[in-house]
């Protein structure tokens, strides 16, 4: 049984279709990348998969559960990092971690995660006062607090320096080896190549490519994923 499966997800806003016939299937232990230019429908796709938006038609199953009607049971096993920051003013790093931990039955020790992510010394700092990179790391960390079977990461390394990105990639690779399924949205093709088994490219709400990274390159007239990606998204490729 696939860990994430969508069938014919369709969503429109004000008469404009932003996602149409979105079908994906992600297996356990797989890293799946959702790609597409800004406005291609990635955020809507994530929202419909997680049940924070109701699709006009189509079905979603995560771990065999319906995210809208079986939310409580499902999200015990799902970690989510949203693209934007969602936290209270004046909250400190450790308070945010503690609060997040309290929401789940089975959790990873956040103090260990802070240490692993090099954020230990910042645990008493106000989240708002962290640097962009530190915040970004913290939000990935929050998604790892539940002992999840699948995690969703929306633009996980935006704003991070090279070293920090590599650190996070390594952490994710380790988690993947332990059987974690990872769904990620990314704009960085090096990241996609380093992490993803399968990808799906969205263009104006439609899937224009679905398959593994090698296939994506081979089925295009180009030799790099970045160029292939631009070609699929209908952008001009300038080498």
């Amino acid at each position, binding site marked *: 049984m696939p860990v994430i499966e969508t069938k014919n997800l369709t969503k429109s806003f004000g008469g404009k279709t932003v996602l149409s016939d979105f079908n994906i299937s992600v297996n356990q232990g797989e890293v799946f990348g959702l790609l597409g230019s800004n406005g291609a429908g990635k955020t809507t796709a994530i929202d419909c998969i997680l*049940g924070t938006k109701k699709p006009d038609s189509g079905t979603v199953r995560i771990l065999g559960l319906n995210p809208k009607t079986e939310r409580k049971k499902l999200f015990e096993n*799902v970690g989510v990092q949203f693209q934007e920051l969602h936290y209270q*003013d004046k*909250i400190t790093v450790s308070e945010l971690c503690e*609060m997040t931990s*309290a*929401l789940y039955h089975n959790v990873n020790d956040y103090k260990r995660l802070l240490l692993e992510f090099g954020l230990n010394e910042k645990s008493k700092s106000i989240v708002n006062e962290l640097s962009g990179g530190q915040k970004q790391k913290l939000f990935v960390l929050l998604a790892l607090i539940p002992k999840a079977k699948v995690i969703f990461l929306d633009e996980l390394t935006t704003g991070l320096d090279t070293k920090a990105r590599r650190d996070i990639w390594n952490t994710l690779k380790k988690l993947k080896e332990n059987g974690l399924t990872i769904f990620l949205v990314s704009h960085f093709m090096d990241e996609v190549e380093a992490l993803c088994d399968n990808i799906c490219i969205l263009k104006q709400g439609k899937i224009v490519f679905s398959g593994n990274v090698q296939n994506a390159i081979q089925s295009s007239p180009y030799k790099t994923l970045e160029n292939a990606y631009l070609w699929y998204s209908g952008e001009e490729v300038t080498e």
Partner: protein
Amino acid sequence: MKVFTTLLRTELKLSLRGMDMIIFAICLPVIVMVILGIVYGNNPENLAASFPAVSTIAICAGGVMGLPLVISGYRQNKILKRFKVTPVSPALLLFVQTMIYTIYSVVSLILVYLTASIFFGFRLPGSWLQFIGAFVLVMISMFSIGMLVGGVSPNTKIASIIASILYFPMLIFSGATLPYEVMPTPLQKAADIMPLTQGIKILKAVSLDKPIDNIILSLIIICTIAIVCTALSVKFFKWE
């Protein structure tokens, strides 16, 4: 239960860090009580009429200022959305917030009572049980207004404008600070349209042990507000 206590503890810490409620729900009522105590020091009846009025200042601050701002802020910062992808319902966060404003209201009530009784010899003529009952009713009613304002305002800016329109006139003219009894009749009539004025009338009647017949209308108004606002906020609440 662990979720609730952790959320309550953290949110309470955050709220205290904000200081606004300490000033408007804790310090302000005590200061007003001291002033009215000095003014009415030799008149136990006026003092007895002031206590229930002053005890609502914190309810007003929390209900129509604190709650709308925190709820609309949490929606705007997508904290409510974040809770939607956890096993815990964002409604629990709203419940925690109402608990926090309940705590402020009760602490304020206790401090106002201690101030009035220790320094000005105040004794409640009516029944405490009835008073507490009325206090809770007024609180539910005012909090339901705040929940509705916070729940349906499109953003924090609009929420804060509506909150100010509700808060400041009620703080000044409902009798919570400036005694209703000293207002000229036309002003009293105008003040009567404010929900808190009706709430204070109920609290005064029970604390002065007056017959309940005089406040039937106020009771109906307060209960109607509570029911209507709660129903509307449940129906139209915007999570994002």
